[in-house]
């Protein structure tokens, strides 16, 4: 349903805009400890940058940057990171998601270990949200009939 729409101004501007948007998204994810932000918000912004790509060019072009397979792997990778951090806590003989125990494998205090745990979790959430936003958008926009980019 989204056909190619060639417009030099739109394509150039989005080329210019996408890197700062992605940088800002990373900032929002990473700086969630000290300012409003976090995994979900940052992931949404990151996903929006890919969606901008799709709108300015077309689905094939966007898929050359991130194929559907990679996207699917990312969407489950994020949740695996999240639940994996919990499993690491389990293996270190604490309760699930008890990040405080991470100080056993890292030279930090318990509170800092918790902060690190929070950061890891936020990264996981961000990856999943980004991948899922893109995948939902692509499937809804094309009715599920988009083709793989030919390599």
């Amino acid at each position, binding site marked *: 349903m989204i056909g190619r729409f060639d417009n030099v101004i739109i394509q150039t501007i989005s080329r210019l805009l996408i890197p700062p948007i992605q940088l800002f998204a990373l900032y929002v994810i990473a700086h969630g400890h000290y300012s409003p932000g976090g995994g979900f918000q940052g992931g949404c912004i990151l996903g929006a940058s890919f969606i901008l790509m799709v709108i300015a060019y077309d689905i094939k072009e966007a898929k050359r940057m991130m194929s559907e*397979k990679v996207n*699917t*792997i990312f*969407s*489950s*990778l994020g*949740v*695996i990171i999240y*639940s*994996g951090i*919990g*499993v690491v806590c*389990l293996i270190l003989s*604490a*309760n*699930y*998601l*008890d*990040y*405080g125990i991470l100080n056993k494998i890292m030279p930090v205090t318990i509170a800092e270990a918790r902060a690190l745990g929070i950061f890891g979790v936020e990264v996981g959430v961000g990856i999943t949200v980004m991948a899922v936003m893109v995948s939902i958008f692509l499937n809804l926009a094309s009715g599920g009939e988009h083709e793989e980019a030919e390599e």
Partner: protein
Amino acid sequence: MTAQAPILIIIIPLIASFLNVIIGLWRKRLCYPLVIITLSLSVILSISILNTVITQGVIHYRLGGWEPPWGIEYVIDHLNAFILIIVSFISFTIAIYSKRNVEQEFPEKTVYFYTIYLLLVTGLLGITITGDVFNLYVFLEITSLAVYALIAIGRDKKAPLASFNYLIMGTIGACFYLLGVGYLYIVTGSLNMADLGRLLPDLYHSKVVLAAFAFFTVGVAIKMALFPLHVWLPDAYTYAPSTVSAFAASTMTKVGVYVMIRIMFTVFEPRFSIVMLPSTEILGWVASGAMIFGCILAIAQTDVKRMLSYILIAEVGYIVIGVSVANRAGFTGALLYILFDAFTMACLFMAAGAVMHKTGETSIHGFRHLHRRMPLTMAAFSIAALSAIGVPPFAGFFSKWYLVLGAIDAGKWIFAVLLLLSSLLVAVAFFRIIQNVYFPPYEILIAGSEIALPSARNDKITLMDEAPMSMLLPIVIMAAGILLLGFFSGRIISTIIQFTVPGGF
């Protein structure tokens, strides 16, 4: 290991569902074994949890190590453990059953089907095990989303619309539940069930608490398809793939009832739900409406799956009536009914699905003479049907016995009469099918176009053509369960159910 069992039972299927996607990209064939292994692990874990609960009492598990009102806590008492075993066992058996059904109905989507199936099981287990009202909402939504999708991929053209209507109703239910959580939070400031149970008694006069209770009840009633709010159920379960309707029919409504019991008797005290409000009285009448209405509509159907859906509505009515009479016998009957009905419904829907797999139709006429073609499936179907009716040696009889006993104990003769009347109606509904299977009326044989080829048709009928092994085995397991569990009902009551009865009954 056993100390961490409460969380492992959730995260093993959860992580398996994430891995399933990645493995599916690589080797599609590995998905089915992965699902079977995962779910068999959760069966083992749920048995170990039940064992721990029986020997050591209530399990408390702090997620993230935070103490309860601040963090999320898992609380597992006899009631949770009981429901956990039902859900994990049924999901395991139906996963075995699903293989051929999935291959036949949507061969190119097996990976995603199994991912969603695992998430559905995770959601149900998560609802059952948690001790936090908001955590329950999150898992409720995982379950609901998964079930909407699984219903929508049914082969029937009407499936997406049925699923959409379910989505609208289900979202209303979930939002009402969330509003209930908000109303409790605004007056107490807590989200933990045990903490709420401690704080609420001082606030029972508050109008906010009353509204919260109303929203909880209506929201959960939508989710478990209690009579006037059941409208989404028949369409959804009729058009869903047979694996999904078997699983959803046997577990989702039961978990809904569990949530209702939890809210009414743990978050609120029985004193509030029974004495201060006439809620059990209202529920009792609503449930008896469900029993009669569901059975009458079931008799009117010609499609077997749709008929079973209406029977399911009636069965929800039975369970709720057991809770609403508010005494020991009634409650015992309700819990026994949850167990037996999960087996019965799974068996009935799976048998109907096996017939659909072989003959491609589920109308009652399609069942004619099937006892020669699919003897085992039909035997299992008849056993389950007799159990649903409540014929003595089968499991359903024992639970109905307690339900009637409870109604009489509470002095509510009218409920007892309605229970028996509705059992009679269920019998009428099922004997229409059983008659078609074993002794089809002669005039039906002549009617229709099939008369043109009597000899060919007879050959087809007499040929034994059972469902494939992976379908037959779960059906037989369920039927055996129905045959045997009834005799152990005394054991089940004395080891598990008698501890679940809330104080004050």
